């Protein structure tokens, strides 16, 4: 896991014996709005994902994390850049050949109410991927559906019920069963627990962890809740305004950060412990997130950064995402100063 992510088309330090399951190179997605403007939702993102790992993607609303998830599953086409899955380049595929790849790439959605067709039975919902690919029918299909229900912790005889008969947590399990139906390699989980209550969240997180072990799944886990992401992920990528600003191993993300935005984000997370809370100091960010239609020059974060030198290098030059200390990758000109210049709470 030493060099899981590298910027640019040629990963500088990729471990030679491991080939990534997924490699994104300079992926860009611009949505056109109006005549001469576009929302730069994802603005040059490169990273690798290796088999069996969980990569977390966090950021505040509008940072492009969900768009990136949809690009990976090719639910929307890229503006430029490449997405290589296994040895297949997905962005140039179309029609049937792309459809065949979808077997290996599945998605779990945020809203367990909107993502299940209310007029289909649970059995039909879970069997739909099997039917789409003409893989199973009749008895065999029913057995597979029941097996999947069992795997996600539901009663296998629920296959004739409708989604409205289930609670939010149970529906999320149905969504997970559907994603598992085709034995995918990679599952993109887009905020899979943020609509759920705390006590149910833990059930779903544990289930996802168990399934990963059992089926050797690879996850891309997208969420705005850094505590949840850090818990489930091996590596965490932090996004800000369409760019990855830091990649860090989950273990030491709380202890050390190499980007001021990550540090501010961490300082803002309330910890359920009054003693820690009373000592916590907020790394204040000035202003609000700029518009992704016209992001700031140089480092996108410089307008709000507490340690930016602007005018100066931060406003003029875009910092590359590169290796800083302790296995962190960060896109910051002054990553070395982050810990010393910005202190918060008990981490220091």
């Amino acid at each position: 896991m030493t060099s899981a992510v590298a910027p640019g088309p040629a990963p500088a330090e990729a471990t030679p014996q491991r080939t990534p399951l997924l490699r994104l190179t300079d992926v860009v997605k611009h949505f056109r709005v109006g005549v001469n403007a576009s929302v730069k939702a994802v603005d040059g993102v490169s990273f690798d994902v290796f088999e069996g790992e969980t990569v977390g993607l966090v950021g505040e609303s509008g940072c492009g994390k969900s768009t990136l998830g949809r690009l990976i599953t090719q639910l929307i086409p890229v503006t430029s850049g490449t997405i290589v899955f296994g040895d297949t380049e997905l962005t140039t595929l179309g029609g049937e050949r792309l459809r065949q790849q979808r077997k290996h790439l599945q998605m779990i959605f945020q809203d367990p109410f909107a993502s299940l067709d209310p007029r289909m039975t649970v059995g039909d919902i879970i069997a739909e991927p099997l039917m789409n690919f003409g893989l199973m029918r009749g008895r065999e299909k029913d057995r597979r559906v029941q097996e999947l229900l069992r795997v996600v912790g539901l009663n296998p005889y629920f296959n004739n019920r409708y989604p409205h008969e289930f609670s939010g947590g149970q529906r999320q399990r149905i969504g997970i069963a559907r994603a598992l139906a085709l034995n995918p390699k990679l599952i993109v989980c887009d905020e899979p627990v943020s609509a759920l209550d705390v006590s149910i969240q833990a059930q779903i997180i544990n289930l996802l962890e168990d399934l990963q072990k059992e089926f050797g799944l690879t996850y891309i886990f997208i969420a705005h809740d850094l505590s949840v992401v850090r818990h489930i992920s091996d590596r965490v990528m932090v996004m800000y305004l369409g760019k990855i600003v830091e990649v860090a191993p989950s273990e030491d993300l709380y202890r050390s950060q190499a980007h001021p935005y990550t540090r501010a984000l961490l300082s803002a997370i309330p910890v359920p412990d009054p003693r820690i809370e009373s000592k916590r100091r907020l790394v204040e960010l000035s202003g609000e997130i700029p518009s992704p239609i016209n992001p700031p020059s140089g480092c996108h974060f410089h307008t709000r950064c507490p340690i930016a030198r602007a005018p100066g290098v931060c406003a003029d030059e875009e910092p590359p995402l590169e290796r800083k200390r302790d296995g962190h990758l960060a896109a910051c000109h002054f990553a070395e100063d982050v810990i010393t210049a910005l202190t918060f709470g008990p981490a220091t």
Partner: protein
Amino acid sequence: MSDPVLDVKHLSTSFFTDDGEVKAVRDVSLQLYPGETLGIVGESGCGKSVTAMSVLGLVQRPGRVVAGEILFKGRDLLKVPSDELRQVRGRDIAMIFQDPLSSMNPVLRVGFQIDEAMYAHDKIPKEQVHSRDVELLKQVRVPDAVNRLRDYPHQFSGGMRQRAMIAMGLSNKPQILIADEPTTALDVTVQAQILELLRDLNQQLGTSIILITHNLGVVAGLCTRVIVMYAGEIVEEGPVEQIFEHPQHPYTWSLLRSLPRIDANRKDRLRSIEGLPPDLIDPPPGCEFSPRCPFRIERCFSEDPDLAEVAPRQHAACWVTMDRAYAEMNAGSITDTRPGAASGVRPPKDLEPSAAETAETAMQSEPEPVGADEQA
């Protein structure tokens, strides 16, 4: 301790639906003291918002307060005529809601809406209203306050809108501010700013705050006292430090252990709470948490425990309490969170959940006899 500003006694609120009476809040008593920040935490459907709505007389049909008293300044708010209650609402007790966008009128300027709150109550002299709205926006740290007053709500960001809502709530210098999930719709950096604002306002103005939230971290940061609700009832209450360090109700304990914490060891598996909250049309006899509780004993299925003092100023509604669970059931070392796992107690035959209801929990693990090995 001084007299409470708000004293809720044995409040029960129900919703009369076609399926039956949903007993959303049952026998809830709480006191709010001057200058205090009281947190009410619980999961969706636990009755925390309905409790607040009941205080302000905002429960709508088919809901109705069925029993209790809400004493504010010596008057029972449930008995005062609606026009008098209207004078209390917004003037003495203000409320801010989760979604600041749908709480504001989209076609009226923000300044007008803040002024409106002041004109409605005649507490602030009319000629002062205009200077006060600028002052209020500055107080809630909206930059460029003079110009922003002329903006419409859609020109404000989510965080700014919530600030404007807080300004509106504070405009009549209320004694109590009820904040119902004020930061749930906001990003965490913005949430931190709003919480800091509420903390400062509480200290500067002495406004008592009731903070309703599902986020235990938010409570830990802002509140001095906390009430934990489950299935329409208060299960535990007490000073924040005590509740977080020595929770006595198994629900509070489980909830705290089910959270992924940013400062925790990542390898620890989350201790989930198995099962689902009960149906409030037909709550289980005995303790509402017993169907999901790892520490339940036989008594829990038949008798509903009342809140009892478990430590100075701390009350819990539990027959077992965590002190006993730690001493007798090795609560600290349990890894199995299935119902009855620590005590080995199964529900009586007639309460055995049907096959359909157990699906979520029963299918997850091998059907071996629950809890036998943890006891050893």
